[in-house]
């Protein structure tokens, strides 16, 4: 098993590639990766099952099955994307399908945090901006988009759409330091002191 969260040797200042629009509000992580595929001790094989039930049970073809969107790297979504279960399997499945960055009207918090841990930028744009991006990639799937983390924009052709990310997280992505563990580990003395100060750690003795 490979630990892909260890990849800290590159920057995520810019993500370029084609886009894919997954329309709909409140798309939950059960839809992104159905629970039956969580019966695994690795994340390795999840990519093939991303959105599986949406892909098989709907009458209209899902964008993940549309050959025009094969190889897309930027997923564009509407409100509250990734709500529900905390399963990191959801961003892992999308990452292994090929997604390297997200733009949405809003994200659910746990999904957002899981993406940070994997170095996948999640940028928030207005409903109008998301609408423009969705129309642009549906009209011409070969269009190249660029997420610019530092500039907080998503660009295509001559257009630039504002898309935000908190300042601290921007820095992490640009410097290649999104993996929190290395940082957390450097505070072992302070961790012990904090633990000592809590009465329940001492059993209230």
């Amino acid at each position, binding site marked *: *098993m490979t*630990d892909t*969260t*260890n990849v800290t040797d590159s920057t995520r200042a810019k993500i370029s590639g084609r886009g894919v629009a997954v329309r*709909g*509000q*409140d798309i*939950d992580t*059960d*839809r992104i990766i159905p*629970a*039956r595929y*969580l*019966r*695994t*001790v*690795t*994340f390795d094989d999840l990519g093939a099952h991303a959105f*599986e039930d*949406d892909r*098989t*049970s709907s009458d209209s073809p899902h964008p993940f099955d549309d050959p025009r969107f094969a190889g897309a790297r930027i997923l564009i979504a509407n*409100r*509250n994307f990734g*709500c*529900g*279960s*905390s*399963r*990191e*399997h959801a961003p892992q499945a999308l990452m292994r399908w090929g997604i390297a960055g997200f733009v949405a009207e*809003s994200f*659910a*918090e*746990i999904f957002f*945090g*899981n993406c940070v*841990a994997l170095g996948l930028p999640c940028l928030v744009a207005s409903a109008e901006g998301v609408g423009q991006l969705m129309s642009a990639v549906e009209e011409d799937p070969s269009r190249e988009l660029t997420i610019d983390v530092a500039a907080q924009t998503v660009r295509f052709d001559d257009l630039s759409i504002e898309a935000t990310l908190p300042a*601290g*997280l921007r*820095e*992490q992505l640009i410097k290649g*330091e999104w993996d*929190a*563990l290395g*940082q*957390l*580990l450097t*505070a072992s003395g*302070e*961790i012990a002191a*904090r*633990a000592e*100060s*809590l*009465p*329940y750690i001492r*059993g*209230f*003795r």
Partner: protein
Amino acid sequence: MSQNLFEKVWNDHAVRDLPSGQAQLFVGLHLVHEVTSPQAFQMLRDRGLEVMYPERTFATVDHIVPTVQLQRPFQDGLAEEMMTAIERNTSDFGISFYDMDAEYQGIVHVIGPELGLTQPGMTIACGDSHTSTHGAFGNIAFGIGTSQVRDVLATQCLAMSKPGVRRITVHGSLAEGVYAKDVILSIIRLLGVKGGVGYAYEYGGEVVDRMSMEERMSVCNMSIEGGARCGYVNPDQITFDYLRGRPKVPSADSEFERAVDWWKSRASGLDAEYDDVVDIDGSGIAPTVTWGVNPGQSAAVDEHIPAPADFPESERSGVEEALEYMDLMSGRPIAGIPVDVAFVGSCTNSRISDLREAARVIGGRKVQAGVKALVVPGSRAVRKQAEEEGLHEVFLEAGFEWRQAGCSMCLAMNPDKLQGREVCASSSNRNFKGRQGSPTGRTLLMSPAMVAAAAVAGEVTDVRSLLN
């Protein structure tokens, strides 16, 4: 102005500020289950790291365990592989593990409180979004992803952004036949499934003050369904009475008294400040049922299925999509929707008081012909208690199946699944498309008493008509 509980507990556990703008937060209690942990332990091995505080992490198995045939090896080879992994991981890293045959095995959010692991004033994390349940005891409890499970194992800390706090006060009193589940479904209906993003929810008011710990757990459990990563109730005498005598709570009187003093000191001050305040009239809440594909899409049992035009324009396409998936017509009554399956269980509603209420509704009635009905206790301890009270006989005589403890049909990672387009009256927490194991299955969320009513009637039924 004094501080609210969230600020106090956050400050107690903040180790330092991180360059990302987040805080490094110490985690007082870490709970682990078999689904979201194997990759985290592997990441530790890959980096050559140890678990920093193995005595602060506790593990159990709940998601994949069968509820009928418990013999090892499991028939499902993938489930067996996950069992083997958590046995090895907890053994290798020195972590307490409540295995299949342990007295306290069960759903992680049921056994934490049963054991007294869950206490006021703590920070609690688990690789499971329903970790918010533990907030019922007055603590900060939230779900995390697998990379963060790794972080907690290795450092007992997380990098976290501090949310705001929204106080939700439920005034008045609940009518007969109205339960904690109806309260939280009503709150989510009012504030929306993303209304809580960026907030911790503090629940209070007369209705919440009067609730038992189990009822408070049902409310806090579904905070995440409202978009809030955690929800809590300030600790009070009901909390302390629940905790006294539990296995992991200090047993000596002097230590227990010191604990209570500290727990009390963590509660929000009477004049505490909040980032937002919401007031709800509890007397106006009726038995509530979801009709759509997210937990905010609900109505009172005596209402009708709404029309897309009843909603703001930005929500209409979602409502249309939900009604199409559920195959429900706008304008039809909620009561009378036929059900194929009735499920009493899940970390929301599988505790002893839930089972007592469901049994009370059954009261000698039989499950309607053609309905598959099952009760899955949240833990082995709940199952044992129910059997001592004879509740299992009420369920079995009515035609319910009486199962072993686990998550079961809430998310169907074990053999308990909906088939095809079946409609399930469910006491669980999510009515997402495909949630209960069939990609086209349909879920109606409601209280366990309402599930029992639906089971005996074969259709959604106002439980108040059966309690009179």
